[in-house]
């Protein structure tokens, strides 16, 4: 009947491979194909530039509010890169790069933030859930998808993204607990970007790391440098492989930083200093990775410039297509679509009521 310490089986790791200057830890450097490394870079760059374009469109009033990804490209792209098409990706609202990587169309993203429900469509065969606005709520959907995967005896996984703020929600807790109990192939990727709108990470929870919350569920947790795409990818790949092999869920905390506004409705000057932001700009995930690729002889400024031009053209084309659609007259009656597989009588009555109203307005 003594008084002693309890041995806790699982432990929490920290992983970092590329430092802020792009120097690599040779011992930890993963062996990856050049093409793969370059595609990581391309997606990060595309994420960044599409984000900046959307920001301008919003400022010009051509689309509505959205949540910029800027600064989190490595966390988002690195983790998503560990997935295959048959896996499932469950996003919050700040994972545009990953969504595009997985086959969502740029113009759909633009339509969605332009106020068109049509933009919420996810193409057949693309296993991404649509944007989930209620913070943390989507974590449980990944658990259900993982449950289905396990039930069907597949070796796919479900990966869910959420922020540091989401870890305070009951849904987060319940999701990790269920995933632990059923040992489901679910990967929980927390993008700790240091802020939940105006609340700094330190005030979100008293725990030293978010990764250690895994200990509450008896599952592995790892904290990675979220601006280091190699570290994020390696951690995600390990978690995915473990999950495919029946090893259950993992919590990954990717430590990164939201370099832009929370959403385009937000004014960060109210709650954080420029110095804080600048310090993180020096840890930019893209620059760092470019240095690494340059050192490997895979990239140079010319090729970057060419790539940027190529990407900008893609974006320009998508913006044109989206604005074309948005310029056409909207059919308000579409609001009655997809409420149920078949609209019920009363819904049809209301639809006719609106149709009549619209006619009356015309005449």
């Amino acid at each position, binding site marked *: 009947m003594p008084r002693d310490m309890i041995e806790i089986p699982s432990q929490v790791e920290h992983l970092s491979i590329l430092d802020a200057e792009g120097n690599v830890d040779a011992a930890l450097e993963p062996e990856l194909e050049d093409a793969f490394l370059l595609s990581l870079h391309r997606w990060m760059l595309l994420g960044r530039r599409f984000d900046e374009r959307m920001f301008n469109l919003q400022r010009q009033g051509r689309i509505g509010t959205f949540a910029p990804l800027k600064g989190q490209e490595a966390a988002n792209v690195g983790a998503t890169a560990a997935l295959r098409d048959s896996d499932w990706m469950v996003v919050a609202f700040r994972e545009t790069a990953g969504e595009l990587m997985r086959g969502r169309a740029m113009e759909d993203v633009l339509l969605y933030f332009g106020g068109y429900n049509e933009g919420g469509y996810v193409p057949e065969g693309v296993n991404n859930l649509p944007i989930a606005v209620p913070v943390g709520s989507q974590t449980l959907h990944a658990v*259900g998808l993982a449950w289905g995967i396990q039930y069907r005896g597949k070796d796919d996984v479900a990966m869910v993204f959420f922020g540091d703020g989401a870890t305070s929600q009951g849904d987060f807790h*319940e999701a990790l607990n269920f995933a632990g109990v059923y040992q489901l192939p679910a990967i929980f990727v927390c993008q700790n970007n240091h802020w939940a709108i105006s609340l700094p990470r330190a005030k979100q929870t008293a725990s030293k790391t978010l990764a250690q919350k895994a200990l509450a569920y008896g599952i592995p947790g790892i904290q990675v440098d979220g601006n280091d795409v190699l570290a994020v990818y390696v951690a995600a790949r390990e978690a995915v492989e473990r999950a495919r092999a029946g090893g259950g869920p993992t919590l990954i905390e990717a430590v990164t930083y939201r370099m832009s506004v929370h959403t385009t409705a937000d004014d960060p000057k109210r709650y954080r200093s420029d110095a804080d932001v600048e310090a993180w700009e020096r840890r930019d995930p893209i620059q760092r990775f470019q240095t690494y690729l340059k050192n490997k002889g895979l990239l140079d400024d010319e090729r970057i410039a060419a790539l940027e031009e190529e990407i900008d053209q893609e974006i320009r084309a998508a913006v044109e297509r989206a604005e074309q659609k948005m310029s056409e007259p909207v059919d308000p009656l579409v609001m009655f679509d997809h409420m*149920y597989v078949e609209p019920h009588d009363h819904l049809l009555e209301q639809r006719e009521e609106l149709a009549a109203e619209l006619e009356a307005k015309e005449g």
Partner: protein
Amino acid sequence: MTRMTMVQALNLALTQEMEKDDRVIMLGEDVGVDGGVFRVTDGLLEKYGEQRSVDTPLAEGAIVGMAIGMAIYGLRPVAEMQFSGFIYQGFHQIEQHASRMRWRSRGRFSVPLVVRAPYAAGVRALEHHSESREAYFAHTPGLKMVIPSGPRNARALLVAAIRDPDPVIFFEPKSIYRAFREEVPEDEEVLEIGRSVIAREGKDLTLISYGAMMRPTLEAAEKLAEEDGVQAEVIDLLTISPLDDTLFTESAHKTGRVVVVHEAHRSFGPGAEIVSRLVEKSFWYLEAPVKRVTGFDVVVPLFAREQAYLPDAHRVLRAARETLSV
């Protein structure tokens, strides 16, 4: 045909659907080993194993949220809330996701989920075990809200709910779980969701109710026939939302006098919508104000006063007579 209680009939529906379709998964607190606190899921674990009769940790939000993911994956989860009074721990998942995923994804994903829960008063239970809050769900676009009134329709409606491609909230009036038996055919029987039925034909007065309140309502109708020579038509809604207003408005056109009966609180309750549909579609036929016989706007009292809270035949009868007297 065997005579069954509602619990047995629900169990039959679950067993037959699980037998037919391995996408059907029962999950919830104590639904497996224990067979459910009311035994509705009794035997499913033995027949279909832990993977299809799933005992979950204690978290309604997770039960609903996980079931949404399962449904999106292509399964047909039936999630039990141990009592409807605890569904609120999962209400955000129902309102924010279950009811909208088809809409949000423009039909790419759907949520063929049934959320089952023992509901309503009358069993001398503790606090939170007696509420009738179907109005919350009936007011939520994207959901269907079903409440059976007896073993046979409970079975046929649950089968329909499980096969429904959209989310269905299925509230089971626990006071009639074992209160009476009905013949329930062994063979498949399905009742269309969104259709009410005439439980008793009549021409003088229309009584509209559902769930456990059908019994006092029918009792009142019999008394009216015996004591007043009045033939009341009694309509059993079965589905609260989408609300079938065809049958009861037709009846109102015939009788001109209507009383709505439910045990939910009156204000902003289900009866209000029925009254409004009658005003919108049958106004010129109404010969008397539509009356609402309902639970009161108070928390359902603990069981010493539970029966006084609940509408009974006497209250229905008085309202009916007042309605007839104008």
